[in-house]
């Protein structure tokens, strides 16, 4: 019993510290707390291309854009209804789509990079 407490307590302290520090929860946590119908989608940015080029999601879904290039990119909708600003190499940007519609977006730093988000 003593042995059990000794191993469990540091774990509890670690968990408590993580939550009080407000550390960003991982994907598993987000999935568990989000509404059961919402989904998280990923768009990979690689070699100056958004993949997939056209993404269909439901209103309330979250989209994560991950930058795999060695330089920054942006995810900027026409009319700026959403704008990531610069996403550094290896970093990502998350957006929850609330409004239905078709949103053409591009990277303002590399305007040849274009894609579409369809929110249904």
């Amino acid at each position, binding site marked *: 019993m003593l042995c059990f407490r000794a191993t469990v307590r540091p774990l509890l302290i670690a968990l408590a510290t993580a939550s009080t520090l407000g550390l960003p929860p991982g994907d598993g946590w987000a999935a568990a707390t989000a509404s059961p119908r919402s989904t998280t989608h990923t768009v990979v940015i*690689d*070699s*100056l*291309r958004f993949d997939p080029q056209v993404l269909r999601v439901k209103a309330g879904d979250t989209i994560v854009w991950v930058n795999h*290039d*060695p*330089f*920054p990119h942006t995810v900027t909708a026409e009319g700026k209804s959403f704008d990531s600003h610069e996403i550094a*190499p290896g970093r990502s940007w998350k957006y929850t789509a609330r409004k239905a519609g078709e949103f053409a977006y591009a990277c303002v*730093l*590399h*305007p*040849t*990079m274009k894609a579409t988000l369809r929110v249904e």
Partner: protein
Amino acid sequence: MRLIGVVIATSLCLTTAAAAAEGPNDAQIAAIVVTANQVDIDAGKLAASRSHTKDVKEFAERMIVDHTGVNKSAVELVTKLKVTPQDNPTSQSLKSGGEQNLRNLKGLEGAAFDKAYVDHEVAYHEQVLDAMDKVLIPSAKNAELKALLVKVRPAFVAHLEHAKRIQAPLAGKS
């Protein structure tokens, strides 16, 4: 201006042709990649500080950031692969071409500077893309080095298109 572009293009063509005949090894390709990026970073730094035109300054900033990022990836990869970049006629030609470009640009101001910088950027990116397609990508032996070249190629295409887009309004201004 046009003459300088032609001279640079010719020297790069000749050396890439020579390199193609022998085929550069991975250590030489690494030196070519690092030098090609560095030359464009240096020109970008000069243009970012000297140009007064918004489009030209933004383009120059993009060249600095993107080519610095590509070089960081290239250096990380060659370090991991334990490849030491090896100087060769193509990397030396790129370096001397870059120095010549800087010397020329430092003697210019205003619209003449903008035009000379952007004209050179168009010629430079065309030549680097040509070298990538005909020499560097086909010659790269290591799969990761080849993959890096393929991965960053679209950046050079985007830069060339960007340079051409801002080149047209500058024509006839100097």
